[in-house]
C-alpha cells in the first residue's frame, strides 16, 4: 500500500514521492466542473441528427416542421450552415478529418455522418426535434465489410504515427527456408471504441469579438488552432478552455461538436452547447480500426530469429486517411537478418478511425507477442528466455542505439514476483474445479518522446508560486505531477505551488497524447522554475505583481540526438477458462515497466494498471460490430459494447524498475500508453497455456472458446 502525502513540508524530494491529486477534493465532492457543466446565460442546446444512410447524398432536410416545434431556434444543415476552410495543416502536422467540418456538402460517406444540428432552448426540446427531423437520402450501395485476411485488393500503404508504411531488409524467403523453426500465423483485432466516461461536450459563445469555447479535449491550443483555421479567424481571437477532462484516450481532439457549436453560436448570437450522446460517440468520436495481421517468424534451433515479417491491414474512411500501424512494434522489439514490416489500409464506407490508447502498438503487440509465444512453444524454449535471446543491440530498422533498454530487467523482476520459475510450460494441465488454469507473458514497448512546450513560473509576493502551462489532465495526474516537478525545481514544498492548465491563452504546449504530455510539460516547467529560482536568489523582495519567468523548450528538445527512445515492460497474466461455458476470467495480472523516472508513484500506478485493464478488456470484451446491410453498428452503446467492469478485474499489480531517461531534465519517459501494450497478448498466451488452443482473434469470446475446445 502506498502512503500518499497531500502536501509536503520538505523540499527537493517531491518527485518520486506518492502525492494525492491536487484537484482530488473537487473530484470526490462533485465540485470539479467538466465542459458541459459551466452555466451560461441564454444557453441554447444543440442536438445532432446523424445519417441513417451509409452512403449517398442528402436530398432534403425537412426542417420547416421542426422549426415549428416548441423552443426550436435553428436547424443547421449543408444548405444553410456557415462555410469553413479545411484546406490547411493543423498543429499536429495533419490535415483535418473532414468529418469535423460539418454541413459543408450533401455527400454522406458513412452511417452516422452528421446531417443536421437542431438548436433549441432546452435539451429536451432539441432532442425531440432532432429525433423528429425528417431527412431524405439518395442512397448508394455501400461496403463496410472488413474481410478476413491480411491481404485486400484495394489496400495501400501510407506512413503513420509508427513511421513509414513499409520497411524491409534481407531475403525473407531465403531466411525462412533456412530456419529450423517457422511460424506463419494470422491474427485479428476488432473495431474498438475509446468510450471515455465523459461524452464529448463543447459550449461556444462570442464574447466581444472573441470566440470562447469551453470544451473537453486533450489540447486546448490544438482545438483553438484548428477552429481558427477552419473559421478563418485570427488565432488570438479564439480561446479554448478545458479544465477537467473526463477521459480522452485519443478521441478528444477536434470533432464535429465543437465546429457545430461554433456555427450555431455564430448564427444565433448566443451561447450554444453541443454534447454527443453515447450512441453518437460511436460514429463521431473516432475509434480504433479493426486489424488483420500476418506474422511470419523463422528461427534457428536456439530460437534466434533469422526472419521476421509483420504486415498489418486496417481500415479508414473514404474522406480521410488514418492508419493503425500494427506492424510498428516489430521495428523496435526484435531484429533478424531478414526483417520486413508493412502497414496497409483499405477504404470503406465507415467513419474515420483515429488514435486510441497505444495506436498501432496495442493491436500490433497482440499479434507479435502472441507469435513470439507460439515460436517459444515450437522451439521448446521458455517465452522469456526466447525474448532475452532476441534482444537487439540496435534499432532493427533504424540501426540507431537505444537510449536505454531495460526489458530483461522487467522480465527478471516480473518473473520473480509472478512465480514464473515454477511454471510447467505444457498446456492444458492445471485444473481448479471446472476451470482450466494457465499463465502467460508478453513484452511491451512504447515510444518515449518529447515535444516543444512553453511555460511560465511566477513568484507571488505572498511567498507562493504559480505555474502556468497549457497542459491537459485527462485523468493522467499531469496537474499533480507538474506540481511536484515545479516544487522540486523551485526547492519549495508542494503546498506553495499552484499549477494552472487547460487554457489556450496559456500558450503553446504539447497535447496530452503519445505518452509525451507530462514529459514535455515537465521539461518546460523545470526550465522556467529553475531560472526563477536563480532570479529570486539575486533579488531582495518580490514586487506586488510578482516575478515571472517564461520558458520555451523548442531548442532543447530539438537538440536531442537521434536514438531509439522507448519505454519497455513485461506483462504477466493468469487466467481461468471454463470449458463448459467458454468464459475466460483473469485471476491476476502483473506488469513491470522500465518507463523513466516515475514522478508520482500513486497516480503512475493507476496509469499502468489502467492500461493493463484496457488489455483485459481488449482481450476478452471489446468489439464493435457493424451490420453490413445498414452499415451501422449493432448495439452502439455500453450495453452492446462491453468494457471491463469491476467484476472482470482482479487485483492487477504494476511496478517498475529504475530507468531514468538520461536525456530528460527530470528523467521522465512517459507512461500513459505502455500499460495496454502486450497486455492482451499475455492474456491470450495464458488462455493457450490453460486450454492448449491458440486464440488469434480478439476478443476471446465464450463462443470462440467453446468452438475451439481444448487441446491438452
Amino acid at each position, binding site marked *: 500500500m502506498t502512503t500518499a502525502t497531500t502536501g509536503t513540508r520538505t523540499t527537493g524530494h517531491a518527485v518520486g514521492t506518492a502525492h494525492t491529486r491536487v484537484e482530488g477534493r473537487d473530484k470526490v*465532492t*462533485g465540485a470539479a466542473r467538466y465542459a458541459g457543466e459551466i452555466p451560461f446565460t441564454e444557453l441554447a442546446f444543440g442536438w445532432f441528427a446523424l445519417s441513417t444512410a451509409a452512403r449517398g447524398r442528402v436530398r432534403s432536410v425537412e426542417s420547416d416542421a421542426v422549426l415549428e416545434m416548441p423552443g426550436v431556434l435553428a436547424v443547421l444543415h449543408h444548405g444553410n450552415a456557415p462555410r469553413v476552410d479545411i484546406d490547411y495543416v493543423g498543429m499536429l502536422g495533419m490535415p483535418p478529418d473532414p468529418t469535423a467540418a460539418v454541413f459543408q456538402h450533401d455527400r454522406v460517406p458513412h452511417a452516422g455522418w452528421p446531417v443536421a444540428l437542431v438548436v433549441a432552448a432546452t435539451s429536451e426540446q432539441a432532442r425531440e426535434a432532432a429525433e423528429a427531423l425528417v431527412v431524405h437520402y439518395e442512397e448508394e450501395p455501400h461496403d463496410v465489410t472488413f474481410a478476413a485476411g491480411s491481404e485486400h485488393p484495394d489496400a495501400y500503404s501510407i506512413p503513420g504515427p509508427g513511421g513509414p508504411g513499409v520497411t524491409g531488409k534481407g531475403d525473407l524467403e531465403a531466411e525462412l527456408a533456412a530456419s529450423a523453426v517457422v511460424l506463419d500465423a494470422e491474427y485479428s483485432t476488432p473495431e474498438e471504441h475509446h468510450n471515455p*466516461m465523459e461524452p464529448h461536450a463543447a459550449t461556444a459563445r462570442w464574447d466581444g469579438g472573441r470566440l470562447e469555447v469551453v470544451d473537453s479535449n486533450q489540447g486546448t491550443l490544438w482545438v483553438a488552432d484548428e477552429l481558427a483555421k477552419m473559421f478563418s479567424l485570427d488565432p488570438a481571437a479564439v480561446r479554448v478552455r478545458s479544465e477537467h477532462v*473526463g477521459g480522452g484516450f485519443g478521441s478528444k481532439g477536434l470533432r464535429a461538436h465543437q465546429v457545430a457549436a461554433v456555427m450555431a453560436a455564430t448564427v444565433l448570437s448566443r451561447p450554444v452547447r453541443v454534447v454527443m450522446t453515447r450512441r453518437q460517440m460511436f460514429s463521431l468520436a473516432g475509434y480504433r480500426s479493426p486489424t488483420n495481421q500476418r506474422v511470419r517468424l523463422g528461427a534457428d534451433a536456439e530460437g534466434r530469429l533469422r526472419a521476421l515479417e509483420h504486415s498489418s491491414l486496417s481500415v479508414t474512411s473514404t474522406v480521410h486517411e488514418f492508419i493503425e500501424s500494427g506492424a510498428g512494434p516489430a521495428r523496435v522489439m526484435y531484429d533478424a537478418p531478414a526483417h520486413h514490416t508493412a502497414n496497409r489500409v483499405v477504404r470503406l464506407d465507415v467513419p474515420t478511425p483515429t488514435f486510441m490508447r497505444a495506436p498501432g502498438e496495442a493491436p500490433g503487440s497482440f499479434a507479435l507477442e502472441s507469435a513470439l509465444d507460439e515460436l517459444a512453444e515450437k522451439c521448446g524454449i521458455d517465452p522469456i528466455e526466447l525474448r532475452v535471446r532476441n534482444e537487439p543491440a540496435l534499432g532493427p530498422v533504424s540501426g540507431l542505439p537505444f537510449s536505454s533498454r531495460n526489458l530483461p530487467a522487467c522480465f527478471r523482476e516480473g518473473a520473480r514476483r509472478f512465480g514464473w520459475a515454477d511454471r510447467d510450460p505444457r498446456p492444458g494441465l492445471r485444473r481448479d474445479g471446472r476451470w482450466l488454469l494457465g499463465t502467460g507473458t508478453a513484452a511491451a514497448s512504447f515510444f518515449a518522446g518529447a515535444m516543444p512546450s512553453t511555460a511560465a513560473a511566477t513568484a507571488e509576493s505572498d511567498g507562493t508560486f504559480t505555474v502556468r502551462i497549457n497542459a491537459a489532465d485527462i485523468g493522467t495526474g499531469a496537474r499533480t505531477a507538474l506540481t511536484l516537478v515545479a516544487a522540486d525545481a523551485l526547492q519549495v514544498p508542494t503546498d506553495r505551488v499552484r499549477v494552472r492548465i487547460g487554457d489556450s491563452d496559456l500558450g503553446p504546449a504539447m497535447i496530452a497524447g503519445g505518452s509525451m504530455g507530462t514529459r514535455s510539460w515537465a521539461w518546460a516547467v523545470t526550465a522556467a522554475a529553475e531560472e526563477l529560482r536563480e532570479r529570486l536568489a539575486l533579488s531582495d523582495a518580490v514586487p506586488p505583481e510578482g516575478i515571472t519567468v517564461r520558458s520555451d523548450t523548442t531548442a532543447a528538445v530539438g537538440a536531442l540526438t537521434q536514438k531509439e527512445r522507448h519505454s519497455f515492460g513485461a506483462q504477466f497474466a493468469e487466467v481461468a477458462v471454463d470449458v463448459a461455458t467458454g468464459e475466460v476470467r483473469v485471476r491476476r495480472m502483473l506488469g513491470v515497466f522500465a518507463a523513466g523516472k516515475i514522478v508520482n508513484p500513486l497516480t503512475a500506478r*493507476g496509469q499502468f494498471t489502467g492500461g493493463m485493464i484496457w488489455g483485459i478488456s481488449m482481450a476478452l470484451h471489446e468489439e464493435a460490430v457493424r451490420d453490413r446491410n445498414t452499415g451501422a453498428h449493432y448495439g452502439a452503446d455500453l450495453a452492446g459494447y462491453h468494457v471491463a467492469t*469491476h467484476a472482470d478485474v482482479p487485483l492487477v*499489480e504494476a511496478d517498475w524498475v529504475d530507468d531514468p531517461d538520461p536525456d530528460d531534465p527530470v528523467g521522465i519517459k512517459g507512461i500513459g500508453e505502455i500499460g495496454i501494450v502486450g497486455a492482451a497478448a499475455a492474456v491470450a498466451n495464458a488462455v493457450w497455456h490453460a486450454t492448449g488452443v491458440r486464440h488469434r482473434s480478439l476478443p476471446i469470446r465464450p463462443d470462440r472458446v467453446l468452438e475451439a475446445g481444448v487441446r491438452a
Partner: protein
Amino acid sequence: MATASPSTYSAVTLNINGEKHTLTVDHRTTLLDALRERLDLTGTKKGCDQGQCGACTVLLDKRRAVACLQLAVAAEGREITTIEGVAEGDRLHPVQQAFLDLDGYQCGYCTPGQICSAVAVIEEHAAGWPSAVTDDVRPEAGPPPLTPEEIRERMSGNLCRCGAYVSIVQAVARAAENDARTGRTAEAAQDAHDAQGTQGAQGAQGAQGANHEGAAA
C-alpha cells in the same frame, strides 16, 4: 418557462440533500437533467443517459438509483442524496476520503457515481443483503465477509473507463473497515450489527484481504 404549456410542464418539489427545491419541469426532464441543468448540481454525471454506466448514480431513499432513468416529476417525495450531499460540511465522508487517499479515480467523471454507489454498498452489505457471489444467502447467515470479490460484484454497475478498479475496490474496503470500526453506519446496518455481533470484524477482514491479496503465486 414563460411559454410552458400546463399539459407538458409541472411544478415539483424535490428534496435534495436535505433541502427542498421547487421548480417547474418539462415532463420529459430526467432527474439527472433537473439536477444538472436546472439546479446547478453538476456533481452527478451523465455518461450514457441510458442506465448503462452508473455515472449518474444517486441515492433515492438511501438506495442506489441511476438518475438518468428517473423522471424528475416522479422523484417528488423521495429523499434524494447526490454527491454534493455525501460529505458532512467540510468533513469528507469516509468513502470520499478513501477515494482521495488511495487514488480511487483518474479522470474523475465516474467518481461521484462510484462514491454514491459505494456508500450504499457498505450499508446494503451491513444490512445483510447478499450479492450474486455470496456463498451463504440464508438470512440468518448475516452479511458475508466484505471481500474484494463481494465489492467488485456489488460495484459492477459503475463503469470506470480509466480502469481505476483496483484502487476503487481498495478504497471501498478501507471505508467499510473504518465504517465498521467507528460505528458510522446506517440504522439498518446498526441493527444488523446488534443482531449478529461479528460483522464488523468480518468486514475488517475483507478489507484486509484487499490489501494483502497478492499477485505472487
